[in-house]
């Protein structure tokens, strides 16, 4: 076992190490990534555990240096997280079951997808609860390839079933993961207490449509049928945001604070089915519309409130100082 990586890149491209085996020159360090850049997996100093290197530039001397901060992954992507366990040798491929891909005409394609949901090579827990998972075995790769390998890719079947900010553990099953000579992973490589740990990022606001108004004198123009969409990094529970936590007003101009007329907001699950988003509309809008045409709206959130994901994780919502949405529903 050389390293354990967790997906924590919002672009779902890069993985970060939450465990690096110390003292082993075969562990990954710098690898070239698909974006044409180099990515540091484990520190070049073999004595260091998992952590993050950052470049420190001294403007006085013009010299660069590196600052290392130890620590595992604490910001796994709530909706796209997975775990990659990298081994220092090939493991018995029987850990993976292959299922042939059948095309839309019912003809076998001679390609297969891998599954580990039956062989269950690890125990994956978040918040102390078993998380159902699937994944595959990739025999490819080494310490300099992207992704690193050979590795087991372990992904929750429903990542949204795990609360944001949850602490998770991965435990290797020594009777399932064995090398080609049937040797299990050495016990001293099984992580602290026999598990590798990481946690999910907290629930966070990620954006809205229309977006935050940069110029309150220039409201966005929107379709009256289109609700305001508020998006988060986790599967949001629409019931966790109550109407009294949303301040929706009709205004003449958005820059006149407090001069608007309060209207009742309606908060609902996203109409397009995006679990990460919820919709906000004017309760007084005509049928099939979200807002009254011709009116200009200002939307902010009441400070100090929070929202929840569907698994119970909580997060804050932006304050009025951080987010003011101003728009005019087109006549």
């Amino acid at each position, binding site marked *: 076992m050389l390293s354990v990586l967790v997906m924590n890149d919002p672009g779902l491209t890069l993985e970060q190490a939450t465990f690096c085996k110390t003292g082993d020159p075969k562990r990954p360090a710098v690898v*070239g990534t698909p974006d044409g850049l180099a990515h540091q997996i484990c520190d070049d100093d073999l004595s260091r555990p998992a952590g993050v290197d950052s470049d420190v530039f001294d403007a006085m001397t*013009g010299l660069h240096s590196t600052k290392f901060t130890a620590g595992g992954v604490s910001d796994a992507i709530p909706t796209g997280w997975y775990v990659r366990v990298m081994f220092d040798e090939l493991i018995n491929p029987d850990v993976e079951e292959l299922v042939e891909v059948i095309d839309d005409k019912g003809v076998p394609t001679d390609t297969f997808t891998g599954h580990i949901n039956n062989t269950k090579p690890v125990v994956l827990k978040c918040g102390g609860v078993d998380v159902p998972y699937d994944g595959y*075995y990739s025999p490819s*790769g080494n310490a*300099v*390839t992207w992704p690193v390998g050979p590795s087991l890719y372990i992904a929750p079947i429903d990542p949204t079933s795990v609360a944001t900010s949850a602490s998770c553990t991965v435990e290797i099953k020594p009777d399932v993961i064995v090398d080609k000579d049937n040797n299990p992973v050495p016990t001293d490589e099984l992580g602290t207490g026999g598990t590798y740990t990481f946690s999910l990022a907290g629930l966070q606001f990620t954006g809205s449509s229309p977006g935050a108004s940069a110029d309150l004198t220039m409201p966005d123009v929107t379709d009256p049928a289109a609700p305001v969409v508020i998006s988060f990094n986790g599967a949001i529970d629409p019931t966790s945001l109550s109407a009294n936590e949303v301040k929706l007003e009709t205004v003449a101009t958005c820059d006149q604070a407090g001069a608007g007329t309060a209207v009742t907001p309606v908060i609902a699950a996203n109409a397009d089915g995006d679990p990460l988003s919820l919709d906000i509309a004017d309760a007084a809008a005509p049928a099939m519309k979200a807002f009254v045409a011709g009116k200009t709206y200002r939307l902010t959130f009441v400070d100090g409130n929070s929202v929840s994901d569907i698994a119970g994780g909580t997060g804050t919502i932006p304050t009025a100082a951080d987010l003011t949405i101003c728009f005019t529903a087109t006549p």
Partner: protein
Amino acid sequence: MNTKLFKAFMAVGLLAGPSSLLHSTDASAQTVTAGALRGEIKDKAANNEGAAGATVVATSASLQGEQVVLTDEKGLYFINALPPGIYTLTIYYSDRTFSRGNVQIQIGKEVVVNVTVDSAAKQSGGGGKEGKGEIIEIQGSAPIIDQGSTKIGVTLTDDYTRNIPTARTFGGVIGQAAGSQGDIYGTSIAGATSGENTYIVEGINTSDTGFGGLSSNLPNEFIQETEVITGGYNAEYGRATGGIINVVTKSGSNEFKGSVFGYYKPGAFVSGAKTVQREGGSIDSANNLNYNYDLGAELGGPIIKDKLWFHVGVNPNVTQAHTTRIVQSQIDENGDGVPDKDSKGFTKHEFVSRSEIPENFKTYYFTGKINGAINANNQVQLSAFGNPRTAKDLNGITRNPADTRWAYDDGAYDVSLKWTSKFNEGKTEVDAVAGYHRGFTTEKPYSSSQNVPEIFYNYERSLNDFADLENNLTNATTGQSCADGPTDKYAKIRNCPVTAYREQGLGFLEERVNDRASGIITLTQRISTGAAGYHTFKGGLELESSTYNAKHYYTGGEILRRNAADTMTTQGRWQERTFVAYQSTLTAEQRMTLANSTDPNPLGLTNDQNLCSAGRAICKRAASIQADTKNRSIGSFLQDSWQVLPNFTLDLGVRYEQQVGYAATALQGTVTGDGETVPDRAFTLNNLWSPRLGFVYDPTSEGKAKIFGHWGRFYENVPMDLNVRAFGGEIINFNVLNAKRRPTTDAMYDPNCHVDHGNPDLVSALGQCNDRASQGTAGGGIEYISPGFRGQYTDELIFGTEYEIMADMKLGLNYIHRSLPNVIEDISTDGGTNYLITNPGNNFDGEATKLDQQSAQLFRDSGCKSLDDTTASCNLDKLGLSALTESRANQLRAVKKFDKPVRNYDAVQLTSTLRATKQSLILASYTYSVSKGNYPGLFSTETGQNDPNITSLYDLPDLMANRYGNLGLDRPHNLKVDAFYVFDLKKAGLLTAGGSFRALSGIAHNVLGASPHPGYGVGESYLLPRGAAPRSPVTTQLDVHLAYGYPLSKTTKLEAFVNIFNLFNKQDELNQDEDYTNDFANPIVGGDMNDLKHVKHFDDAGGNTNTTVLKNKNFGNTGSSNGGASLQAPRNVQLGFRLTF
């Protein structure tokens, strides 16, 4: 060693170093166009003491005039600079005249001929007869063993090429040397790739300046001798990490001699070639010869007897051939949706149609030579020769039938001028050679309609998709068709699958001219040091100036590749590949805009523009890249053949070389997108010191045996492809078109991006596609050379012995070890964004620290307060250079993380040689060798990529995985037997029977996938360790030669002959399709076949997936992934005649 002489020669070399005008490249011009003779004259009447003061005169039809020397006080004599031929020694001693004939001199060899005379005998001496005033003839033959050096290899004479069934040119016969084998670009020697050989013709280096290897070539009838040196050579030879091929053409003589000859190989006498069936495809092919003939004549004679001779020759060679392109359909008789297989596991096919693709080649060989002798000690030679060719050749079969051919002209012209002077009774010799070599290649479309962008579908689809291009996809007789559909007989399968189909265009083409002007001067001095023996010092200075002027272009200016078909859920994307050139460096304002904008195209670049130089510059599409480059180099050497004892010689030598490579002329002094000024000199390889140590011991003291050893270092001559590709302004831009795969319902959907074959204006549409994303650029126009990088070299150790078991016959046993401790390659430490040319695996930390300091100084000089300072006082150019220098420091630190290069060749050779006489010859060898490592040489033996020192082999760390193993030229068993015998039928003439037998192990095969990095792709990912797949079988071949000659007069003979090549018509496998998949996949490090089925592929944007790769159905079958031949050529018969006079 004479230190004064050593210093003198080395000083000349060093003075002409970096600051001199005398530096040059490829300094391989050699003066070894002659042989040497030495021995002892003993006087029987004086108890076999040395006959001091005897006059020794060497004469030969090959020699203008005669060479005269006196024996020293020990009776020893030495004659240098003898043209190859049969000599007679005439010895004048004590008022008597003795003659010893039948002494064969070969180029580069030193023959020991000891002669015992009897100054007292009246009637006989040495077995001969004497009368008053008569010549006493002494019988005997010269030993066959070269006592002068530790060289191993073979010398091929006219006797060999006339009587053994061989190829028609010297380039085709050098494979006779023990341990040699063919590779896809020529002849490999001692585990090295063919581009590592140096070819010397008439004393000048005729190797290709661009890629190394053979450039000039001549028919055997024009050749006097071809010496193939496979190892153990002294310091006079350099710039080669393979072998040395030393060729001397025929000269005139005092008599008019020549020949008229013709060869004819009719297609009707060629056995049918096996069709190489490609699994998973529907287009197969077979190559067939229509005819090959050549008719030539060569004539030599005196212009002024003993003073001025001439030799001329001309030999046009014409080949007409054709490739049969066969379209076949898969079948599915049982309707299970799986194509039916035959009992051998091959897919069954039904014939659909065929077409014939003609090819023709015309080569015009010529030679002309003048030899002049001012006197016996001053001789001059002027030689000119060439081999220009025109070709209409096959370009590929998996493409539009209208585009299967292309045209090219190539070949070479050479001129050589040589001067030899002797002084000091022959003990001092000066040789000077000046030469000019021009090689050229002009690739061009066969027709103007081909000068359009190549459109390439890099996935399996139906050939019927291209029915508008394919003329006949339905068999009129059987009705079998490539059309799929419900009325199709085999509705559940794709009848005619085709992968990598090219719709139009030819892709990459090149026009190049490769010149080399060379000069070499050598001084040979023989010195007697009394009890310490004799020294033969030889020192030389070599200068060369080489050019490689190239125009590179894509037909139609681009290559368009569709990577995948539309599926139910995703659309296929295109890749657009173009040459681009720097247009402008970003202004400070543009940099700010780029840094702060979220607009996908904040600079408003047009579709023919892209960012380059890591985002610091704008490049614009270029129709072609013109790179005119040159090299200068110098070589100097000093060697001493120290004859410590008459039977023990030490060969000591040292060689110094320097090579300076220049950037393309048009780029010198310009500023790159990185803000650097392009220097004139791209790189300098200094201090290439090559020591050579050897010994030769003759336990018989009669020249009939030798035990020898040799250790030497040999530096590579870096071919100029590196100048053109790394310092010629080449930047290739890759864009993904239809990048976002927007559905048709998307407001941003661009129909110009979502196109396929059938669109009448496909190229134009893609040109207007706005859904495009940069995949990056390959090459930066000018690559970075790591400071402190060193030359590429081979170390060699040889031990061997030879013994003359009977007159004219010897046996030999050699052990050879070669390693390749240091290579030059380009690498990238940042996933292919930046490259540097360096020595992979070496430690450059010290140089990196220097760059850190330079970077810091640049930053301080910039006046900037931070890395993102945008104030007016901040000099952004210096800030950019600071960042660039820092990034290079980081790259240098990573060089040591690359695998060290390994290429270890170990061989044991057993040889048997019966020297060619008028009656017979035997050349036989068996070599057992092991060649392992991770670096095959100057080209990739797997993909065929021929970019010396800048192949993809080391480009990325992840490409290195699994590369160690049995190399692509590892063939453990290599047996060669060539022989002929002449039956003298007296008045009825002469009957000659000759034969050539070869047995050769097959190569170990690989399991390859496509690298997920853009710009690499198919065959670049070693899914399993090198050589993990089984070897091809051992191949054998017997060729025979039968000739009948009839003497028309005493000097004129007419001979008719037949050569039958591959008598038993063995068409065994030579190569396999090694591409396990065309999908992108990473290597399984240390894996085996059981792991393969679990390999997952990447999507075409580099994302990993949970879907296994699609196995190439043809994997492991006879085929080729590197462009080499798949099968042995079928039996073919060549008829010929030769009139000699």
